[in-house]
């Protein structure tokens, strides 16, 4: 709101009067400054830039639009961001006053444009903010290369006037005809009816939906024989009927739908019948039921289902009729009726369809009923009683597939408690039922069924037995531990032994209510139980467990040692790392698994990064095979430190191991969201460069992009905050410590420190125009620094400057500018980068491409100023000499001969970076 008012005021002013003395920049500079901030960093910034756009007025916007060149040139990128920004902003709700001037400027630019792509661009952008003026103008563009864009924008604007323009230009162009249909432009009907029927005319007339078109359609569908044809005549006819109904002419719409039903009879046009039925359903509602009851007799399953999908909408009031049909239907139709009406409500469905079908003689019908029961019973009130009845009283009827269906339904319906209602006396179930109940007991982890599971493990029936063992695992609780150990003692089959072991392990690894370790430790020495209980040792909380396994490893029988070696591999605590190390080196059958366990335990939170690295180095030295070394390298990815990186990078040149080494290096060095911000420094950058070459495999192209982006962002940006030996010896000192701006005063909002670099980034709550100055003052000095520009960036170094005022005049400004940018093509020589602004022009050609770091030196000794850029001297002047006939810019520079003052960065609203800032004072 506020912005809108500001805009209209400023806009009015800017047409004639220049603004306050505080902003005496020329229009060119304002435009350049504005464009330099694009693309905007955020939508808030876009909104705040609107002030700047408004102060340019329509003329300024026109100048920006004039910067647009064919998109392949690329130099008008920021101007395009500006135009797009304006077009979208102008179209936003509440910005009505903004719209007309922007539209006007864009239309003017369109009129001036000669290149096809540029015209296309303006026409499409006008879709966002165009109104009547655009509609009028675009009439002339509805032909040739601009036709598509003009048609597209007119369609988007979509007013009657726009449609009128399109109609005026329409002879028989298919895309114009299409547009008229999409706009539902009734006045186009006459024209369309005068054209030969085609896919496009029929489709457009269908959208328009006027009764006058009826004969036209009838001719076309008759010619098509009510069958699919190249004109899609029948499809359009049905669309036409839909549109007629929507427009209030239900009578005619229905007539057409009925006609379609009469004529579209062959098996390959059944989907037309579906559509016709759907149409009739929309107007007739449940009155369509008799028709549907006839249509359901079709041989085609897909068609029948579409009939039922319509019928479903009118249940439950129509359920009586469908129920009568139900009793007389084939089994297949019964299953379809059940699955359709099962999810509706009303007692009829249950009484006449579901309940009787649960005991049907046909298995597929029974199963459909079971599933339908589940859908019907939304509050879980009747499913269990009905299914319980089947399971207990109708066992003779049920087959395998019934039990499968029942089990699936119960999984979706029962909790651990309500499961008990299914068969309060489990022994009343037959074997199939018992096995199912046990599987459900496992799924729902129902402790009350532990006893039943326990007694069932001795069943003669294989399914029941298997389900019982599985159920034990999930139904057992801590107080069942002793009983389980007893069962384990008795068990002889390997799968039963391991099932019981797993059950016990689950108990010992539960979150709470864990059985006492003594229950195991007291029994483990008993003959016949040692090997069976050893697998539990890794999961006991007691410290005695480790002593026990160590002792068995040394003194046990071969069978016991073997079990112990296998168990060690499952240990949960890194305290056994040395035991695992020994086991790995022993080369026994557990060696490989020991390596896996060793590496797994290194992931433990209790170990420090340094410890992990030591352990990795240790096992790496013992590793024999490439596969093992590769595993170790993969595990090393968790050591997110420089030493971890150095460890893995040792293997980058090993042809067998370079891939895992590279992946781990990448994982270590790059940021891990939520865990680490990534490593920094030149060494890291150098390693990552090698890593980038070595990364291979699927998706490697994307990893390479990620790595390079990281290198660019951090690797080279980490400014050193130390002086070189030579400079230190020469008397230089750091002005910027790499960490903070403590030695600086001024604008610390635009100027901040990130990763050892001073970042200049205008923010939404500053104007971007304040300076950052040294706290101290300097007279004669050598000032060295590095800078990195963004396109069109504009800044400056003020020297011998006061803390306030415009340093270009109250002192001296050594210009910083991306002067290669086209937006600066008309600047004066003394505005060029490195110039003493307004006084002495700098030489060109020493700047590196935008985005790269440049190094510069400013030497101020008395009235002699020398500027060196990337090793090349670009200014070497004496101020007295240079101004003996007045200043180059003919302006007053009162501070030019200040003997001393602060050094500072002069903000001009651009994004750029500085680093490595140091100074040597001269006596």
């Amino acid at each position: 709101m506020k912005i809108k008012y500001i805009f209209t005021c400023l806009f009015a002013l800017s047409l004639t009067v220049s603004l306050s003395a505080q902003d005496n920049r020329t229009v060119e500079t304002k435009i350049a400054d504005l464009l330099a901030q694009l693309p905007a960093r955020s939508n808030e910034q876009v909104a705040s830039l609107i002030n700047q756009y408004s102060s340019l007025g329509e003329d300024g916007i026109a100048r920006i639009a004039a910067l647009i060149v064919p998109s392949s040139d690329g130099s008008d990128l920021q101007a395009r961001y500006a135009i797009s920004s304006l077009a979208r902003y102008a179209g936003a709700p509440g910005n009505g006053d903004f719209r007309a001037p922007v539209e006007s400027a864009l239309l003017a630019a369109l009129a001036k444009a000669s290149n096809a792509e540029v015209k296309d661009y303006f026409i499409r952008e006008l879709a966002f903010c165009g109104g009547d003026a655009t509609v009028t103008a675009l009439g002339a563009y509805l032909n040739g290369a601009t036709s598509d864009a003009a048609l597209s924008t007119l369609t988007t604007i979509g007013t009657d006037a726009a449609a009128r323009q399109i109609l005026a230009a329409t002879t028989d162009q298919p895309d114009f005809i299409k547009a008229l249909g999409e706009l539902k432009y009734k006045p186009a009907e006459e024209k369309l009816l005068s054209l030969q029927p085609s896919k496009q005319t029929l489709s457009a007339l269908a959208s328009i939906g006027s009764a006058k078109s009826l004969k036209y359609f009838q001719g076309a569908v008759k010619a098509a024989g009510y069958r699919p044809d190249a004109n899609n005549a029948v499809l359009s006819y049905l669309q036409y009927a839909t549109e007629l109904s929507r427009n209030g002419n239900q009578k005619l719409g229905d007539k057409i739908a009925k006609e379609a039903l009469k004529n579209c009879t062959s098996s390959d046009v059944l989907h037309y019948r579906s559509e016709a039925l759907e149409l009739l359903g929309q107007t007739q509602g449940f009155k369509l039921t008799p028709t549907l009851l006839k249509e359901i007799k079709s041989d085609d399953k897909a068609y029948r289902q579409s009939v039922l999908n319509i019928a479903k909408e009118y249940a439950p009031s129509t359920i009586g009729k469908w129920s009568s049909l139900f009793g007389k239907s084939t089994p297949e139709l019964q299953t379809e009726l059940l699955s359709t009406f099962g999810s509706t409500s009303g007692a009829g469905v249950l009484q006449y369809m579901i309940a009787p079908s649960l005991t049907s003689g046909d298995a597929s019908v029974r199963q459909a009923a079971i599933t339908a029961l589940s859908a019907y019973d939304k509050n879980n009130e009747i499913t269990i009683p009905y299914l319980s009845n089947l399971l207990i009283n109708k066992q003779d009827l049920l087959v395998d597939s019934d039990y499968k269906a029942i089990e699936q339904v119960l999984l979706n319906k029962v909790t651990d408690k309500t499961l008990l209602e299914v068969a309060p006396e489990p022994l009343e179930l037959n074997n199939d039922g018992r096995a199912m109940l046990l599987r459900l007991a496992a799924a729902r982890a129902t402790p009350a069924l532990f006893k039943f599971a326990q007694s069932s493990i001795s069943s003669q029936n294989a399914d029941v037995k298997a389900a019982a063992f599985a159920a034990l695992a999930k139904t057992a609780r801590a107080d069942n531990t002793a009983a389980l150990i007893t069962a384990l003692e008795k068990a002889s089959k390997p799968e039963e032994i391991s099932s019981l072991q797993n059950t016990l392990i689950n108990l010992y690894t539960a979150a709470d209510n864990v059985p006492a370790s003594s229950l195991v430790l007291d029994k483990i020495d008993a003959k016949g139980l040692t090997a069976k209980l050893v697998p539990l040792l890794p999961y006991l909380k007691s410290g005695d467990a480790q002593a026990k396994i160590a002792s068995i490893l040394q003194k046990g029988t071969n069978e016991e040692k073997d079990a112990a070696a296998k168990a060690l591999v499952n240990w949960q605590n890194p305290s056994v790392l040395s035991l695992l190390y020994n086991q790995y080196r022993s080369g026994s059958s557990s060696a490989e698994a020991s390596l896996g366990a060793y590496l797994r335990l290194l992931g433990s939170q209790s170990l420090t990064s340094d410890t992990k690295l030591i352990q990795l180095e240790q096992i790496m030295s013992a590793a024999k095979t490439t596969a093992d070394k590769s595993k170790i390298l993969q595990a090393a990815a968790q050591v997110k430190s420089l030493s971890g990186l150095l460890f893995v990078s040792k293997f980058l040149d090993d042809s067998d191991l370079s891939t895992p080494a590279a992946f781990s290096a990448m994982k270590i060095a790059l940021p891990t969201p939520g865990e680490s911000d990534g490593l920094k420094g030149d060494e890291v950058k150098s390693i990552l460069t090698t890593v980038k070459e070595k990364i291979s495999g699927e998706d490697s192209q994307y990893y390479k992009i990620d790595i390079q982006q990281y290198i660019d962002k951090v690797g080279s940006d980490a400014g050193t905050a130390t002086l070189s030996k030579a400079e230190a010896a020469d008397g230089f000192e750091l002005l910027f410590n790499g960490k903070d701006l403590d030695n600086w005063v001024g604008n610390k909002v635009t100027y901040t420190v990130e990763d050892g670099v001073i970042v200049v980034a205008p923010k939404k709550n500053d104007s971007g125009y304040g300076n950052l100055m040294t706290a101290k003052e300097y007279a004669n000095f050598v000032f060295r620094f590095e800078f990195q520009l963004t396109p069109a960036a504009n800044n400056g170094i003020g020297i011998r400057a006061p803390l306030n005022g415009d340093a270009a005049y109250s002192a001296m400004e050594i210009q910083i500018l991306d002067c290669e940018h086209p937006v600066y093509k008309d600047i004066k020589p003394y505005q060029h980068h490195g110039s003493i602004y307004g006084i002495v022009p700098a030489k060109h050609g020493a700047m590196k491409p935008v985005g790269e770091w440049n190094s510069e030196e400013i030497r101020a000794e008395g009235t002699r100023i020398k500027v060196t850029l990337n090793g090349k001297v670009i200014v070497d002047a004496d101020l007295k000499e240079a101004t003996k006939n007045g200043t180059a810019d003919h302006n007053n520079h009162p501070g030019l001969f200040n003997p001393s003052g602060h050094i500072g960065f002069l903000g001009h609203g651009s994004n750029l970076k500085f680093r490595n800032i140091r100074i040597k004072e001269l006596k």
Partner: protein
Amino acid sequence: MTERHNRRDFLKKSLAVTAGISIVPRFVLGRGYMAPSDQLTKAIIGVGGMGQGHIGYEGTRLVAICDADKKHLENVLNRVGSGVQGYADFRELLLRTDVDIVHIATPPHWHGIMSVMAAQAGKDVWCEKPMTRTIGEGKRVMEVISATGRMFRLNTWFRFKDNFYGLGTTVKPLKKVIESGVLGWPLKVTISGVTGFDWKFYWVGKTGLKPQPVPPELDYEMWLGPAPKKPYNVHRTHGTFRGYWDYDGGGLGDMGQHYIDPVQYFLGKDNTSPVKVEIDAPQQHYDAIGTWRKITYTYDDGCQIVLDGANADKDAAYIEGPKGKIYKGFRSTIPNLQQFIDSLPDPAPQITLFSESVKTRQKFALNEVNGFRSATIVNMGVVALRLGRNLEFDPEKLEFVNDEEANKLINQPMRGEWKI
């Protein structure tokens, strides 16, 4: 009425008799019942990239493929052997009488049109994500699928199978936890690198593309289809098309439905949409898609889905509710979570094999209705990014509130004769 015919006999007859367009749904055989041993057939449109993965889907028999790039077509034809015919124009492929399912693996700007045309030709549809490039196309797909009684599925699956990225488990236990109410309500879901999801910001477009000669094997006109005609540059096609608004939605468009559809499922929001979308992003280019920092969707009841592209919230839980949180890897603030989950009933059953949907004519787990809703979440974000402002949405009317320009991006004009 219809005699029992052997499928091959029937086809021979119909091919001899008909000269024009004849579309024969395969359920015409026998007494309208397909024997379980009958193998379903499929065709794939778009075999340059993702489409190749579709070749092996569900054991259905491949009979035809189509691509606008002759080299892609030849490549795959060589791989799949005889019995598969290649097409350059999908409209011819749709005339075939022996295709049960059409797989659409083209760039997204084609998804809507092809889904509709395939359904109108009597085929069932298996479509790549995102379901459609615009909200309007999605509405139309729903309309036509319903009217023609076809089956539709999207090619994402995490709501019903596979470990779900950062969660480390399938979505099922999460759905049970949420349905139980133990986390409270409303819930906030954060999708970011911190919670285990990668937004693939490398899918950005390039500006200042220089026009290049169209390679002889590519029918660029057909490749573009409904998209505006812009000079050919290889970066606009083949994989990197994901970086241009004309064809897709960048990383958001590419991964959005994979990441967001399961969230919509476990929040129980398959029949509604967020009412607000807020964006934090740099200004977007009008043609090339850029990156974004954060997109926040808010539902009427306060539930939120936060796409944190900048990983700004380093401690983010994956799901946060007033009474509990779930973190990446299914770590939780709730004690004894696994036992609690076990005790609960499983979520409502879904059909998870498309061939079953095709045979029983019951909707697939991820169909045109719930798929439209999760695609709409993605597309709301795309519209907000392109316009550069926050938006409000009406989940019943399926339009933006008080923003005419945003509504103009719901149904975007198509080039030439193409319409949906």
